[in-house]
């Protein structure tokens, strides 16, 4: 009887924890002319912060116009909060071979 009570309690506690989970923040590095990692999966409401670790400036520009950073010098950062689900492809407008994807689901 007591055992079942503990399980119920644990289950309720877990549900409570999940219900109050906060929006996450993830940092992506820009290094050696690459977005690292190139693909990232997050949940709606999460924020991505890009940090430029290259000596050369880069930008973060989404292909669909959803977001656009100014030129990021070394150590500069740019953040965007993804409220909607979807797949967001982006590139660096100075070096357009540099591409990345954020999957929001």
């Amino acid at each position, binding site marked *: 009887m007591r055992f079942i009570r503990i399980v119920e309690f644990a289950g309720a506690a877990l549900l409570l924890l999940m219900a109050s989970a906060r929006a996450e923040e993830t940092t992506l590095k820009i290094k050696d*002319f690459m977005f690292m990692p190139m693909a990232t999966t997050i949940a709606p409401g999460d924020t991505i912060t890009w940090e430029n670790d290259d000596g050369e*400036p880069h930008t973060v520009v989404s292909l669909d116009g959803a977001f656009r950073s100014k*030129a990021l010098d070394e150590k500069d950062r740019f953040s965007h909060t993804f409220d909607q689900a979807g797949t967001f492809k982006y590139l660096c*407008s100075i070096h*357009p*071979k540099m591409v990345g994807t954020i999957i929001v689901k």
Partner: protein
Amino acid sequence: MSESFIPSRRGALKCMAFGSAGTLFTLSGGVLMPSALGAERPAGLPLFLQISDTHIGFNKEANPDVAGTLKTAIEQVNLMPVRPALTLHTGDITHLSKASEFDLAMQLMGGLRAGELHTVPGEHDVTDGTGEEYFARFGAPSRGKGYYSFDHHGVHFIGLNNVMHFQPAGLGAFGEEQLAWLKDDLAARSSSTPIVVFAHMPMWTIQESWGWGTGDAEVALGYLRRFGSVTILNGHIHQIVQKVEGNITFHTARSTAYPQPSAGVGNGPGPLKVPADQLPGMLGLTSVILKQHHLSVADTTLA
């Protein structure tokens, strides 16, 4: 020196081993010929200047004082025995497209005793997407498009913009509208008119994986091939690479700010840090001399 050199960077470096870093190289008829700086040149010979990649605003290890090296370059020009008739800036005037960077660049360039200044944008000048700060200052000749043409001393100059329509492969591009304008601009010109084209990205593919090229350049070259003398001046790669193809001479200039690695050497085309005493020898300017309807390109370094 009696050898004729292939007009490549390797050829230029090999030739420089015989002369000091202050040697002037004249590329004429596909042959790279050295001469001492300050050598005699007939007075009144039209001279144009190419300056490139000044990157005002850059302040990292590869060169903490890009304004200082630009000033050195300008002082060098102001001491030349023949004053250039005009100056072409082949882009990346600033490092981060900021208003303050453009203001300082224009202030410094104001000290240049070298005729009118004509510019084309580099990708560092238009990082906000629309190029607001660049076009506010330099957009008038091209009505905000970045491409335009003008005539000087019988030479037809064409400034082109290949940094605002990047191709998926990462190369620069002109776009259809600009190519149609170029075709039209050249249509009425006689083939004996000397042509100078200036644009930021190289107009031939030097290193595709680094974006060193222009995807639709072949279309532009098709319009240019009938002319007897075409000189294409580019920047972007912060080093001299040259080639001659028929009547077309291609030349990329050094930067006045910082060098970059040779094509394909290392992770990417970022700033290259070199020992402080070597830096001035890797920065410089280019003079273009008009001689009997033919244009000769000459490179100098800061030291």
